[in-house]
């Protein structure tokens, strides 16, 4: 590695950052981390929420919130940045160290044309260049990041561009002054997987074309192993491990890294199964040719709890006479006691489909049959009674639980709605539900704010199960969670399904997550079903080019899924979080909400 001889481009040594909070004084977010970045090197900081990765990024840019304390060494090209004046920082930011932010949809000024925003990035450091030359440079930058018709695009406003396009604009602005180092904070976590691939390819190319060094902040080990020379694994503000991508994958030295790797959902493994004897979850490697007798497709046609046929739903478009077809001629079957995975990118209509299946939104045409009864047109009391039989769990548990209800109150709400049981019986049921989802019973009296995201999602699942529904619809129910928490929730679902015989419609943008829980799969794009079939067949031999493109774009393909040890060797025991984990989690939450969107 080149960084061992000369001074590295960026040196971070014993860096500690603490935030000042109102109540408890200083909360350390980063506790003495060290790493170097050499010229032209890509280094990834990987960690879950609260690991301190975003704080490190802000420290490198000198953008920590006022009142935060920084100690340790931070050197750029041999010069110390600790204690640099605001003026000195301004000369470095944008010119030598540039920034690519997390969510392109909120990172451009909505009321200024994108050309002007890039021009501003140039103007800040260069006031002498004439206007026309700056304009030419803007066009050139837009062209370089692969934006078609740059002349036209420069005159557009951010909302007229797609998310991936906007991220390219932000990359163009970051490149404006030819910096030596780019700090990219989760640059693709808000983007669809296929767009993510394009943007990451682009950042990768910058290194080879321009010799840029990149500090890549990501929660996704797949992204990190695909894209970086070295990976720094952070946990709770400490460096767990710092090694090359190959080393991290093949011989991780830290226990934490191993656990993180194990928690990453594997797209090349089979469906998770609950083993009642050992009380563990197993993930078999899929046999290349699934045994024909056991295919879920046959089981589904034999017995489906929910059958939807030819569903159609359109919305009023932005222009008269041109409706948006959110769901077009979609037919699906949810196998009884099994899981139908519905996968698609944003705008594919999968969330609209969830609302149609649960009758939360009316269908334009098509039929929905639940357990032999047509529920397409039921209204009034019949529709209300349907709510007992079909339940939905959403992505964000912070938003789907009333912050003023105790957990017990939230859990018995469905029972109260249907006048089931006495107050005491309902309390007993709440305790029962808590233990069912692996939470301690004394959680009953807590408020949602006292629980972590993963625990709240368990509560949301428990609430959905209160009335013993026949069908559970999960709309991106694990997408907002950290990968290790996500793994726990997926295992919980697999266990519940096996113990209660639940039928599940599982909606996600994440192919690997879908792979882990589904018996059969439906791939959606732009409101239509592109491909469907038993999971084992569809993932091993995708027929449609779209499914193949999706699989191609799954991060981690380059190094991770080719070489990982078989997961069978390390069965994961579901591990309920004890209350002692909370103090850290609360701090993690505070930082997480302050630093990065869910």
């Amino acid at each position, binding site marked *: 590695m080149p960084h061992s001889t000369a001074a590295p481009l960026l040196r971070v040594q014993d860096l500690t950052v603490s935030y000042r909070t109102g109540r408890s004084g200083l909360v350390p977010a980063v506790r003495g981390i060290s790493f170097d970045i050499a010229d032209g090197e890509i280094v990834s900081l990987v960690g879950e929420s609260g690991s301190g990765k975003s704080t490190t990024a802000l420290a490198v840019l000198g*953008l920590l919130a006022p009142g935060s304390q920084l100690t340790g060494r931070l050197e750029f090209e041999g010069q110390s940045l600790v204690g640099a004046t605001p003026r000195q920082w*301004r000369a470095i930011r944008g010119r030598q160290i540039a920034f690519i932010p997390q969510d392109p*949809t909120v990172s451009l000024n*909505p009321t200024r044309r994108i050309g002007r925003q890039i021009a501003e990035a140039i103007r800040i450091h260069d006031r002498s260049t004439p206007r026309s030359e700056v304009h030419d440079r803007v066009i050139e930058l837009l062209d370089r990041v692969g934006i078609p018709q740059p002349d036209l695009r420069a005159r557009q406003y951010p*909302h007229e561009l797609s998310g991936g396009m906007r991220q390219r604009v*932000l990359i163009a602005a970051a490149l404006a002054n030819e910096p030596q180092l780019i700090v990219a904070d989760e640059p693709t976590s808000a983007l669809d997987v296929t767009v993510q691939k394009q943007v990451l390819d682009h950042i990768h190319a910058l290194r080879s074309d321009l010799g840029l060094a990149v500090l890549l902040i990501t929660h996704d080990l797949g992204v990190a192993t695909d894209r970086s020379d070295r990976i720094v694994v952070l946990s709770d503000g400490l460096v767990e491990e710092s090694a090359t991508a190959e080393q991290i994958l093949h011989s991780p030295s830290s226990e934490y890294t191993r656990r993180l790797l194990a928690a990453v959902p594997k797209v090349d493994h089979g469906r998770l199964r609950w083993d009642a004897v050992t009380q563990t979850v197993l993930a078999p490697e899929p046999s290349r040719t699934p045994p024909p007798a056991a295919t879920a497709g046959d089981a589904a046609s034999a017995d489906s709890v929910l059958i939807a046929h030819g569903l159609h739903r359109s919305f009023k478009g932005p222009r008269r006479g041109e409706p948006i077809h959110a769901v077009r001629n979609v037919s699906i079957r949810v196998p009884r006691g099994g899981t139908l995975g519905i996968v698609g990118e944003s705008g594919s209509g999968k969330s609209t489909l969830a609302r149609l299946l649960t009758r939360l939104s009316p269908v334009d045409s098509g039929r929905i049959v639940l357990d032999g009864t047509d529920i397409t047109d039921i209204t009034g009391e019949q529709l209300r009674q349907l709510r007992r039989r079909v339940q939905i769990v959403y992505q964000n548990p912070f938003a789907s639980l009333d912050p003023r209800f105790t957990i017990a109150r939230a859990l018995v709400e469905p029972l109260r709605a249907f006048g089931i049981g006495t107050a005491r019986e309902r309390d007993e049921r709440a305790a029962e539900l808590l233990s069912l989802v692996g939470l301690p019973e004394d959680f009953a009296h807590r408020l949602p704010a006292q629980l972590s995201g993963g625990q709240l999602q368990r509560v949301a699942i428990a609430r959905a199960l209160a009335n013993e529904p026949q069908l559970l619809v999960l709309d991106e129910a694990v997408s907002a969670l950290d990968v290790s928490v996500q793994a726990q929730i997926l295992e919980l679902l697999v266990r519940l399904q096996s113990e209660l015989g639940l039928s599940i419609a599982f909606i996600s943008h994440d192919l690997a997550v879908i792979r882990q829980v589904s018996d059969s799969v439906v791939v959606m794009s732009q409101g239509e079903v592109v491909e469907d079939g038993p999971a084992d067949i569809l993932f091993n031999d995708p027929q449609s080019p779209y499914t193949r493109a999706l699989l191609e774009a799954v991060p981690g393909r380059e190094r991770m899924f080719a070489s990982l040890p078989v997961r069978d060797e390390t069965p994961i025991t579901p591990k309920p979080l004890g209350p002692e984990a909370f103090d850290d989690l609360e701090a993690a939450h505070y930082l997480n909400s302050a630093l990065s969107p869910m």
Partner: protein
Amino acid sequence: MTRRLERGAEFKDWGTYVGRRLLQGLLVLWAAFTLAFIILYILPSDPVRIMLSGSGAEFANASDADLAKVRAEYGLDKSAPLQYLHALWNAASGDLGRSIQRGMPVTDLLGGALGQTVRLGLAAFAIALVLGVAVALGAAFTRNRLVRQLVLTTPSLGVSIPTFWSGLLFTQVFAFRLGWVNVFDQESWKSILLPALTLAIPTSAFIAQILAKSLSATLGEPYIQVVRSRGASEARVLLRNAFRNASLPLLTMIGMIVGNMLAGSVVVETVFSRMGVGRLTFEAVNAQDIPVVMGVVILAAAVFVVISLVVDLIYPLLDPRVSVRTARRRNAAPSPLTPPSPDGTAADLPSPTTATIQGAVA
């Protein structure tokens, strides 16, 4: 080519939008008129007696013949629906009746007073804008937390100062003690300073409150952090990037601001004895000069209608995310049918202005 077609569609949309909003405005005017009519004329009381008892001693013991004469003059001898239709017809053709107190047509009275009040209002608005923006920007620029908090408390102070008190105070200090201005010389432009300042103080406090809150929200937006990451100075961040976006909510509040100033002018014009709409209102209410009160109600409603229309038409020019098309959709159907847009932008559009402004009318 497609762009030109889009323009055409946009333009056509714009035309229908304005037409629709004008119709809505007429509806609001009609509702205001009807409500005022019901309260002033039809509720159980004798408007003629009220008018006469209020207008002076000579009618204190009016004979039945006199009463009948006045009734006939104002059309009050007819049935209520007929009276209403008569008054509505007159109002629609621009005749708001005659003042009982002064005998002049109400429209002439209002027209004469309006100029004074508009001058006062514009001067007050200009002062309020400068003061309010200065306080809000000052707070945003201040690094020291304590000082910022201190600056941010001034608006609540400003809102709570009663204008009759501050008006008298200013007169006492600036006109009498220091003798800088002559408040009684209506011709001099200087005379407008003190009443305008009096009227501006609560308004500026209101502006400062809204702008400071909106500025601090805008400064927390991710795109501001991105601008900082490019090496921008705080002045550039604040003035070139945050200020314009933060002032958009203020625009939606203009209806309310003007409403407050109209209400405030009643006190201020009375304190400074200026003959404007506020003073006219005060005297008309005092003398129970019902036609004039009706006229003021309609004028106020018309001002709101015009301002809300103008604000809604200007808004798309300042915020490119809002087009007349989306505004119209929002007004027409407050249904949850907003399609799930692929990138979620439609969901975070700033709220339309109409709701706030119509709220202010009520």
